[in-house]
């Protein structure tokens, strides 16, 4: 069953403060006892161009946007038409704003209302149109003034009382101006706030969640080079790490950042970097070094549109190939992907633990849609997974073998400072002690060992999220952020009585063929959903899994998010 929710977009030109209004609305919704999410979109201007804040507010946590918007609220309409494909409207939609909306919206929407936001704002000392718009939105959604007041106080408090009261006055004026507008208060705020407002909740983005997950997992050293849309992971970590006795170093480039974290990890500190496609490409050589030298590192890759510089501000799942296969030589490593914004927390934390445990590189594939979307979710308790590296211990007896051929494939790692276990880590193929070797035996043994580590580890039940009907003959197989739309689509279909199962893979490499076979038992048809042009996930499944069912690929490239309705339609059309 789909969650009852309302979708509203605020739009406006440069300097109109649309993002501020959107953020306040989201925060207020949280205080009022709702859940929801907010995505931003902006024009090509570096700053000061037109922007849109797209919100979905709901009575329960939601993972994706809806197929359509209930309300489009224009602070002004300058260049708003560039968002047309991102903001689908229909006969039930309402367009409200100052002046004539772009034809594309006017034609699509069922209703149109004009409100003189500029004029109303001018009449209030210190009043701004975006605050008036916030009031309009609050009124239409049925958000109580008191909640808006709280939120304003928190956001503008630093600027002094005057700012707060000017803001509030504008909000009030907006609420009044909206008196005659239709209401979209189906969420019954009153009830929601009674019921669940006591449940503590967070307002967090996926990038922030990756940062928090990282330090929960034990990361204390980060080196990185900024890149859109990964920068906020780093911006969150930069002030956080020193508080925990750690450090973040801004490196000169990605070649440096990945090597810095290899150095940090060699020194015994769990270490991480975050980047996006172009930066990941630059890191691949040295990620291979981490694999060969068995030095644990975590690389968060927040995907954006590709190839090359591509579309830096938009989401796509098209870095799956490079993450899985982009290392030269045979270089087994870990690839994981969070399934939702909230899951950025757990998946990053788990990745840290796995990389440390298996002494290898873990690539975490988040994306712009997860990373830069803010969401309201229940507060997330720390599951307590913390990095535990198998280290060599004093006293060291005999000749220390850094790359000893253990049964598990994991060998005790000496940390500089431990007397008697000095060794040289090496990216050249090596003997058990780390001495370079080009002998076939050494090569085979070390390759087997590096593979064995991953094959023999029991990854448990977190490899995927499985939901839906156990007796379904149809399954949707997906990964990463596409899970949001898939989950919503399948909930809708199941609400209509159809039987469908969803398997959303969190652990992409190493492949878990037996687990997937188990998860797909009885399934006859598998729809593979991903946001790429080339069907990268579909191809990967074919390569590494024996799926005993008819498979179809639904691969849709970015920049637009996959919509639940697209998934529903594809499933329905498959007869």
């Amino acid at each position, binding site marked *: 069953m789909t969650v009852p929710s309302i979708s509203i977009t605020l739009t406006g030109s440069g300097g109109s403060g649309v993002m501020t209004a959107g953020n306040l609305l989201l925060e207020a919704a949280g205080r009022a006892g709702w859940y929801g999410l907010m995505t931003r979109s902006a024009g090509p201007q570096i700053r000061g161009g037109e922007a849109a804040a797209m919100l979905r507010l709901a009575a329960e946590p939601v993972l994706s946007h809806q197929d359509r918007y209930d309300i489009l609220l224009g602070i002004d309409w300058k260049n708003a038409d560039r968002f047309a494909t991102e903001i689908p409207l229909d006969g039930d939609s309402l367009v409200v704003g100052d002046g004539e909306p772009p034809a594309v919206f006017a034609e699509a929407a069922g209703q149109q209302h004009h409100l003189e936001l500029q004029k109303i704002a001018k009449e209030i000392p210190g009043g701004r149109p975006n605050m008036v718009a916030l009031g309009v939105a609050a009124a239409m959604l049925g958000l109580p003034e008191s909640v808006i007041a709280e939120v304003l106080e928190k956001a503008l408090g630093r600027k002094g009382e005057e700012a707060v009261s000017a803001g509030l006055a504008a909000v009030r004026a907006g609420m009044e101006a909206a008196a005659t507008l239709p209401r979209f208060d189906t969420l019954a705020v009153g009830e929601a706030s009674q019921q669940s407002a006591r449940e503590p*909740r967070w307002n*967090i983005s996926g990038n922030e969640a990756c940062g928090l997950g990282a330090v929960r997992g034990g990361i204390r050293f980060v080196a990185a080079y900024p890149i859109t849309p990964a920068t906020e992971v780093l911006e969150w970590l930069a002030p956080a790490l020193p508080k925990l006795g750690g450090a973040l170093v801004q490196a000169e480039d990605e070649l440096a950042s990945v090597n*810095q974290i290899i*150095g940090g990890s060699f020194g015994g*500190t769990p270490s991480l970097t975050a980047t996006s496609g172009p930066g990941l490409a630059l890191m691949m050589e040295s990620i291979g*070094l981490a694999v060969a030298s068995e030095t644990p590192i975590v690389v968060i890759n927040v995907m954006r549109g590709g190839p090359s510089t591509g579309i830096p501000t938009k989401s796509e799942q098209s870095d799956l190939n490079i993450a899985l296969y982009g290392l030269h030589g045979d270089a087994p490593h870990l690839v994981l992907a969070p399934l939702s914004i909230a899951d950025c927390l757990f998946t990053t934390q788990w990745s840290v633990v796995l990389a440390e445990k298996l002494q290898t590189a873990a690539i975490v594939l988040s994306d712009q849609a997860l990373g830069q979307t803010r969401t309201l979710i229940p507060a997330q308790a720390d599951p307590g997974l913390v990095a535990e590296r198998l280290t060599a211990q004093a006293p060291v007896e005999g000749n220390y073998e850094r790359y000893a051929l253990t049964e598990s494939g994991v060998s005790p790692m000496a940390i*500089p400072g431990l007397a008697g276990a000095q*060794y040289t880590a090496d990216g050249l193929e090596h003997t058990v002690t780390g001495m370079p070797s080009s002998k076939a035996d050494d090569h085979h043994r070390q390759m087997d060992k590096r593979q064995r580590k991953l094959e023999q580890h029991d990854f448990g039940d977190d490899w995927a999220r499985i939901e839906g009907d156990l007796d379904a003959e149809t399954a949707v197989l997906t990964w990463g952020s596409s899970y949001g739309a898939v989950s919503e689509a399948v909930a809708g279909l199941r609400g209509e009585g159809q039987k469908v199962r969803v398997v959303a893979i969190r652990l992409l490499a190493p492949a878990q063929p037996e687990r997937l076979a188990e998860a797909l038992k009885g399934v006859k048809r598998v729809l593979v959903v991903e946001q790429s042009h080339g069907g990268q996930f579909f191809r990967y499944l074919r390569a590494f899994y024996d799926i005993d069912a008819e498979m179809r690929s639904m691969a849709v490239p970015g920049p637009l998010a996959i919509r639940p309705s697209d998934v529903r339609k594809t499933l329905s059309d498959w007869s």
Partner: protein
Amino acid sequence: MTMTMTEQMLADEGCPAMTAKDYRSDVKPVWCPGCGDHGVLLALTKTLAELQLAPEKVSVVSGIGCSSRIPAYLNTYGFHGVHGRSLALATGLKVSRPDQTVLVAGGDGDGFSIGGNHFLHACRRNVDLTYIVMDNQLYGMTKGQASPTSAPDWEKGKLTPGGTGINPFHPLVVALASGANFIARVSGTNANGAVPILKEAIEHPGFSLVHVLSPCITYNREQLDWKKMVRPAPVEATNDPGRAARRLMTDDNLNLGVLYKGDRAPYQPDLRSRGVSVADLEAPFQV
């Protein structure tokens, strides 16, 4: 063998002193007989003995090249990383483990060609590292191509048949220009002469560059002449960048000794605990 002063002091205190040999691993170098790098290895073990650093408190990080093979020949911790990235790896190690003495070693190709950017930024970042570059003005490991320090008319570089025709890279000048805190030159064919300078470099806080003239007898035998051509720098080390710049601009690559000694504070993030827990960081997310 006579004892060094430090060894004598330790012996007087009853501690068993480490000798140069104690810093050598039992791995046999792959270097050609007569290669200058043998001398650097010897000088380094002697320097470590001078400093009486516990081997487990020292890490030696390198890239790829003949010269970059050195970590495995030492009985310290080591990392033989990928080509050109040793300074970056060492930076991560040192800032997160300031208790380790971190040395970085490699060749002119590794450091100034593919590794040039990290060299620039290591100089300016001024982390407390000692960077030992064994300069043979060519790529030994890949069998004799020109490097950034090759003479423009060296015709034997296999990818530059008529000579490179381009300005050689002046590592010391660039180091100074980008902010290195200690700049010296030693000769790989005179291990004993190198020891006091290496010692000073390691002890000097911040980023220290030690440029080593380390002849490649296989791909440029003429470098054997360096031995006769080098001389101690005619003047004392300066701490004035302007004066150092003037000197280095006219440096003919043959002056040995400490050429510049700055006093910038090293870059080192403060890793002391602030008494904050991970859970404390969650507060701003609460609605």
